């Protein structure tokens, strides 16, 4: 039963993605730009979802890994002219490795903590990275940031917005696929087990710390990938990219879209970027819309936007067979079974 449901879900996702890939290039340049930004950033959000939705660890420092990837790309491109040709692919690899290395370092400190303490320590570590980006003028350009004047050219010219959109889309699709394979693998299943009942997993003999640590590194690597793409999308890298609010954004996008769904990441990113960068050009009270959307989703849609189909189905009475677990996939944010009423 649930296998068929999964197949349907996968089909929907594939079709939706195909629709995006086909339609967006025929819209205006601005829409293409927004879509590209959303896709690049959503890789970061998906990496966070691996931690949040599957391992049960909420991190407030994920932007640090985007920073590593972005700054590496910018420094190589602006100072050494590396990464602007076929060596772009090399930079992708370096970006992911660099971010993974940082995650390996930070993970040693962070993964011993859980829950709120994990939140705080990742916040502190992320702020350290920000401090470095800000103060290490000779490397990072300080608060001026680093400009990337050109996009890479290797047979295809990424300066063309449509071409670049397809490249970013490709990376997004591949990331989604890889992450999906990971969460479906035995390793991924153990992560969910750790999220649900860590003591039990330990009793069963799993090295839960190692699992969390590896998940942390994988998330870091994908954060780095997001950073490399982000550097070329925005054309400028500055300490703003690693500031606390960027990490908060990623967390909110993950929750908005639906933690534990992976694809929720791109939906959340799309919605937030749409409000922040498109709606803000139309009305000036867009901040209230953004804040209001967060609050309403958290209150009434614990599974995020991705849980809407499930909710609709349930509301239609199709859930007589009572599978609570079908509520959009995320049980990390399940409403407490015992509602405290007064």
């Amino acid at each position, binding site marked *: 039963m649930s296998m068929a449901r999964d197949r*349907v879900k996968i*089909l*929907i996702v594939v*079709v*939706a993605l195909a*629709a*995006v890939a086909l*339609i*967006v290039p*025929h*819209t*205006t*340049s*601005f*829409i293409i*730009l*927004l879509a590209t*930004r959303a896709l690049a950033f959503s890789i970061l959000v998906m990496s966070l979802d691996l931690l949040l939705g599957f391992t049960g660890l909420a991190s407030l420092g994920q932007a640090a890994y985007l920073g590593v990837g972005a700054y590496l790309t910018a420094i190589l491109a602006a100072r050494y002219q590396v990464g602007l040709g076929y060596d772009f692919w090399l930079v992708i690899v370096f970006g992911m490795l660099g971010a993974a290395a940082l995650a390996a370092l930070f993970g040693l400190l962070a993964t011993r903590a859980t829950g709120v303490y994990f939140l705080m320590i990742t916040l502190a570590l992320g702020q350290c990275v920000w401090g470095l980006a*800000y*103060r290490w*003028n000779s490397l990072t350009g*300080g*608060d*001026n*940031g680093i*400009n990337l*004047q050109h996009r890479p050219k290797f047979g295809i010219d990424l300066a063309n917005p449509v071409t670049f959109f397809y490249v970013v889309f490709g990376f997004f699709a591949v990331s989604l696929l890889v992450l999906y394979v990971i969460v479906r693998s035995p390793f991924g299943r153990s992560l969910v087990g750790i999220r649900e009942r860590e003591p039990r997993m330990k009793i069963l003999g799993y090295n839960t710390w190692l699992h969390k640590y590896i998940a942390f590194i994988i998330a870091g690597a994908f954060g780095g990938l997001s950073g490399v793409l982000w550097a070329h999308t*925005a*054309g*400028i890298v*500055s300490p*703003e*990219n690693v500031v606390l609010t960027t990490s908060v954004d990623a967390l909110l996008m993950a929750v908005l879209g639906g933690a534990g769904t992976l694809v929720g990441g791109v939906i959340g990113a799309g919605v937030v970027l749409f409000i*922040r*960068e498109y709606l*803000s*050009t139309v009305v*000036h009270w867009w*901040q209230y819309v953004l804040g209001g959307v967060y609050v309403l989703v958290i209150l009434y849609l614990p599974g995020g936007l991705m849980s809407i*189909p499930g909710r*609709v*189905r349930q509301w*239609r009475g*199709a859930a007589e067979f009572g599978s609570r677990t079908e509520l959009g996939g995320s049980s990390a944010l399940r409403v407490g079974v015992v509602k405290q009423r007064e």
Partner: protein
Amino acid sequence: MTSKIERRAGLLTAVCFAVAMGAMPAAAQEELRIGFIAPMTGPFAQVGKDMNDGLNMYMEEVNGNFGGTKVKIIVEDSQAKPDTAVTKAKKLILEDHVQMFIGGVLASEGYALAPVSTAEKTVYVSSIAAADDLTQRQLGNYPYFIRTGWTSSQPHQPLGQWACDQGYKKIIAVAADYAFGYEVVGGFQKVFEDCGGKIVQKIWPPLGTKDFGPYIPTFKSDADAVFSLMVGPMPLQFPKQVRASGWTKPIIGGGTSYDESVLPFMSDEAIGDVSALQYSAGLQTPRNEAFVKAYRAKYGKVPSYFSESNYTTAMMIDMVMKQTKGAWPGPEAFIAKMLTLKVDAPRGPVSFDDMRNPIQDIYIKKVEKTKMFGYDKDELWNVVIKTYPAVSQFWTYGKDAFLKQPVYSRDFPPCKNCE
């Protein structure tokens, strides 16, 4: 089946959305469309508002008409983030088809927006973003960029000369720890030391510091004065805390330490402090008096240089459009014409150097509690005590000599007399 319906609904929505976006009408060619990028939300929102108010005041004076052509201003919120500023600039260019865009506040925004102007061949007029190098060593990268505001070091070079002339020999520099702070201190230090003075200490509190407790006790007691560069909420606290610590010697400020965006909110401990900028609301000329009175009547507060700069920028664009009888001459010709302007602005006479930066009067101003322009209350004003006329971004150094030295940074000029 529900899933099919969901799928179709999703597809339909996506298609409708895309079509709606793509079907935006191409803008009419007759009017002049100007994009305005400033922070409208977030910690710098008031700066953005002041900038916008200054611009709007001019627009209303001319009824939204430059040289016979209707002008449309499209305001976009940059949130003071370079990424967002770039996105908004691209939106203005690609969707709204603006002929030029004004704005950017922080240096990082300036550095982010300038390449956009080059890539999209659209004029970028920076009315506030003061990063030195945009009109110095980097100018070649940005042929469509012109600045109507200032460079960070421009007012502080003459201030260094003034400090030397006052007889100060040793000065402590306390400045916000970011590029703007470095450039301001750099300009001051270069001239002050070339004149024979010594900067004996450089302290860099992080941007946004409000508690100067850690730094004030480290002040060298044999210095003659403190030179401070404070930005945002910092200027409100620094003079108070310095005076409360028992420091009685003079405090000299950079342009933003006492400008009108903070002065009305300061108290009497700021009285007597001197600073330098290309504008003071207390400048007693008929042109400025009219400007200040009109602005204050309209917006309820005294104009700051943020307002004046954008007002004057609008005026300059108008002057160019009058020359072309309202027809848009294309970006290159527009810039060429703007560079030939000689403007009588509220800040005084303004012209341009060949690096597309203004040449203007720099005012050394002192905070005094007095009645100004016929207002009946004693208030804090920046009263002008000395004017250095027609100051360029290079001061007296000559362009080539100046450009040979590196851009002012945390380490340049080096602090030879520190410690």
